[in-house]
């Protein structure tokens, strides 16, 4: 028996196979590599990968799941492959979109021309829960608001790539992109044979160089960059620790920092040390209790003032959430036209705004066909999958929508494309999405040639979020013909060595939670 013997594509767009069962051209080599493999052999590889995941503590936390919330993130070993021409389209589309959103953010926090011109109803921006009036008229370095963006793309029944969601606040998941590649090169090295898979490991180098460039002019020589985490209880803490180690920067919590006369300092065993750039993985609300939520114990009092005065840089900037609001999402194609005079390269998914009376009526009448989402929730929370919901669930949701229409949007259920996933004995098609990571620096935008492919492992499920039972795949972006950029196994082994070391030290840190005093925490990272 082989892995793909009983594989069915119907009735969805399949990433790997044509409807007639033939592998698509960019998957042919992989198919050759895998077609004669027995499920037993594949299972041995899975076991090896699982062991690596557990040993390295690659986990995430699920909120609202009671005790023992840390779970390993399921990793499916069959890679998702994207050919060069498709990637080129994605790259141009994402850059166009992020350039627009950065211009939009600068505009709404300054002159608000876009609102005066009526391109977006002013009310939708000004009264959005993630609009930060406190940050009006402040100038982030280089006028960049979003330095790290993780946009969710999907492919519909025709295979058209569409933007599902912009993530402009603190997008997570990139650690899995890097880790999945490392593990896959180790347990399935033969799969890479003869395929020009573009490497992803320059992500951290690029990110670090972008972050350093954000430092105040007087501190460009040797800027001190830190990663600010909410702490061990955050669902993405593993990633925070991982990235800090990969970037070679300090992992700090709010209590490790203090602001004196608009300068941010880090408490260390050698005294106070100035901080120039903060890669923050804390939401706006918790960033600075003096300006935002005053009950926040995670943030740093005075940080927003220091930022306003240009003495420290934040990535991402403050108030970016207003632009990844699911309501504003519906206006992005219009914004691209407004700011760049271009048509959107990557289309949106058709979206109905409950704030518009006609659409509200349509939404309420078609709840059984639509996916309804709360404007400001992420991670698959606050969402109704109409076709799969019970009547009670739909009625309950209808009430919520009527109560606060501004907070809801609806979209038709998209038949997400599927890709083969190994499920114990053989491969079956499972729905996937795609989250590429785009960086904006003072010198331009860089798209990492790889992405997080999330896969809904539950049969029939469309929800790929890790918090809702999703897993991930390694994503291979192929180089253009003639370019030899293939993934070298040698260099990977080397990376692997340092990674193991890295992770074991981050683990020991996770083992010493809140009781340690701030100076010790800082030292533990050195």
């Amino acid at each position, binding site marked *: 028996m082989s892995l793909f013997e009983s594989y069915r594509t119907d009735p969805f767009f399949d990433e790997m196979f044509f409807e007639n069962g033939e592998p698509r051209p960019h998957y042919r080599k992989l198919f050759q590599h895998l077609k004669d493999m027995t499920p037993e052999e594949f299972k041995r590889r899975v076991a090896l990968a699982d062991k690596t995941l557990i040993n390295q503590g690659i986990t995430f936390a699920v909120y609202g799941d009671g005790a023992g919330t840390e779970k390993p993130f399921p990793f499916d070993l069959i890679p998702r492959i994207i050919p060069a021409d498709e990637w080129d389209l994605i790259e141009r589309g994402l850059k166009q979109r992020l350039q627009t959103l950065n211009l939009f953010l600068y505009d709404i926090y300054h002159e608000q021309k876009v*609102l005066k011109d*009526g391109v977006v*109803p*002013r*009310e939708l921006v*000004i*009264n959005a829960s993630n609009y930060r*009036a406190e940050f*009006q*008229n*402040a100038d982030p370095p280089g006028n960049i608001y979003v330095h790290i963006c993780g946009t969710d793309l999907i492919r519909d029944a025709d295979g058209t790539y569409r933007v599902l969601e912009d993530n402009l606040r603190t997008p997570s998941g990139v650690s899995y992109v890097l880790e999945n590649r490392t593990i896959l090169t180790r347990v399935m090295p033969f799969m890479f044979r003869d395929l020009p898979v573009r490497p992803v490991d320059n992500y951290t180098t690029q990110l670090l160089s972008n972050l350093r460039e954000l430092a105040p002019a007087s501190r460009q020589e040797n800027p001190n960059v830190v990663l600010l985490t909410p702490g061990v209880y955050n669902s993405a803490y593993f990633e925070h620790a991982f990235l800090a180690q990969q970037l070679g920067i300090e992992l700090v919590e709010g209590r490790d920092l*203090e*602001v*004196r*006369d*608009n300068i941010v300092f880090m408490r260390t065993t050698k005294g106070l040390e100035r901080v120039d750039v903060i890669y923050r993985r804390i939401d706006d609300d918790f960033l600075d*209790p*003096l*300006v935002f939520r*005053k009950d926040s114990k995670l943030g740093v*009092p*005075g940080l927003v*003032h220091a930022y*306003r*005065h240009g003495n420290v840089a934040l990535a991402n900037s403050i108030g970016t959430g207003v632009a990844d609001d699911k309501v504003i999402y519906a206006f992005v194609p219009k914004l691209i036209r407004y700011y760049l005079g271009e048509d959107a390269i990557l289309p949106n998914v058709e979206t109905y705004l409950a704030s518009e009376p006609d659409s509200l009526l349509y939404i309420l009448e078609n709840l059984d066909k639509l996916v309804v989402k709360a404007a400001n929730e992420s991670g698959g929370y606050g969402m109704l999958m109409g076709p799969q919901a019970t009547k009670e669930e739909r009625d309950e949701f209808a009430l919520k929508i009527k109560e606060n229409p501004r907070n809801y949007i609806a979209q038709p259920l998209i038949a997400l494309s599927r890709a083969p996933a190994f499920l114990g004995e053989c491969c079956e098609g499972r729905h996937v999405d795609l989250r590429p990571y785009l960086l904006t620096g003072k010198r331009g935008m860089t798209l990492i040639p790889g992405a997080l492919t999330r896969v809904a492992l539950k049969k029939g499920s469309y929800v790929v979020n890790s918090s809702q039972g999703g897993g991930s795949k390694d994503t291979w972006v192929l180089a253009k013909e003639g370019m030899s950029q293939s993934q070298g196994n040698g260099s990977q082994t080397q990376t692997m060595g340092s990674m193991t070391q890295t992770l074991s030290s981050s683990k020991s840190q996770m083992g010493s939670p809140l009781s340690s005093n701030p100076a010790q925490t800082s030292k533990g990272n050195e």
Partner: protein
Amino acid sequence: MRLRVQHITHYAYASPAFDSHNEARLMPLSDEEQTCLAFRLTTEPVVKIFEYDTPVGRVHHFNLHQPHSILEIRAESEVFTNRINPFRRLQLVTDDRDFYRRDDIRQRYAEFLTSTERVPLVPETERIARVARNQSGVAVASFLITLNRLMHRVFTYSPGATDVNTSILQVLEQEKGVCQDFAHLMLSVLRSEGIPSRYVSGYLHTGHDAATEDEPEQTRVSNEAMHAWVECLLPDETWCGFDPTNNLVVNSHYIKVHHGRDYSDVTPLKGLYRGAIDSKMKIFVRVTREEERLL
């Protein structure tokens, strides 16, 4: 009118406080109706004071890391107010409420029509709105004056009856509060009626005269702290201040410091510190009228 304001806030800590971070919105703003001629912010212990400007006004901030057992913040300002007789602007005869139904108006002033944490739009305020509607004429100004009077009549000014976080629902129930409560409640009624309106912090001159040191008029409320009132958008797209605590339309005795959606946007002084659990705050506010001089 030339007015001088002295506003002292004094914190005494039971045990030393440290790592103190503070933000102040204490400087009177300058607009068509008043000019801030001078402003001075000082503290004890002495610290370096920083500032930045927002679209509304200037914000000052400072921090103090050394342990300290007191913190005193002194804001002194001199303001020239020049409000034209507000009643000259109020059109009381014809129905002009269509203005508030215009989409462009509702968009342009969206932040002043919305419900906030301190100004929830709740059905409980409908009772007040209905009475005010029944007692007023067709013009919006007539409604505003009536509502202002109604607020003053129904609710009792009672220092200590509420604190800074009392909800308007509780104020509605106990029918008592301070100027902040009067303002928040009136904003809730106004916004439910679709009239853009904003919270104003400032000072009210109640009769002190620099030359004679007269006692303030006891009938007007403002001393002991800053005052608060509301501003409503009129159909000519200008703002007019109403003081429900005193049933007055805002005149040249009022000094405006800041405005916003509610108190949270204009908080005169906010701070965080480590150390002391207990602190005692004393506030001293004095507004005196200066002799008019040729500028």
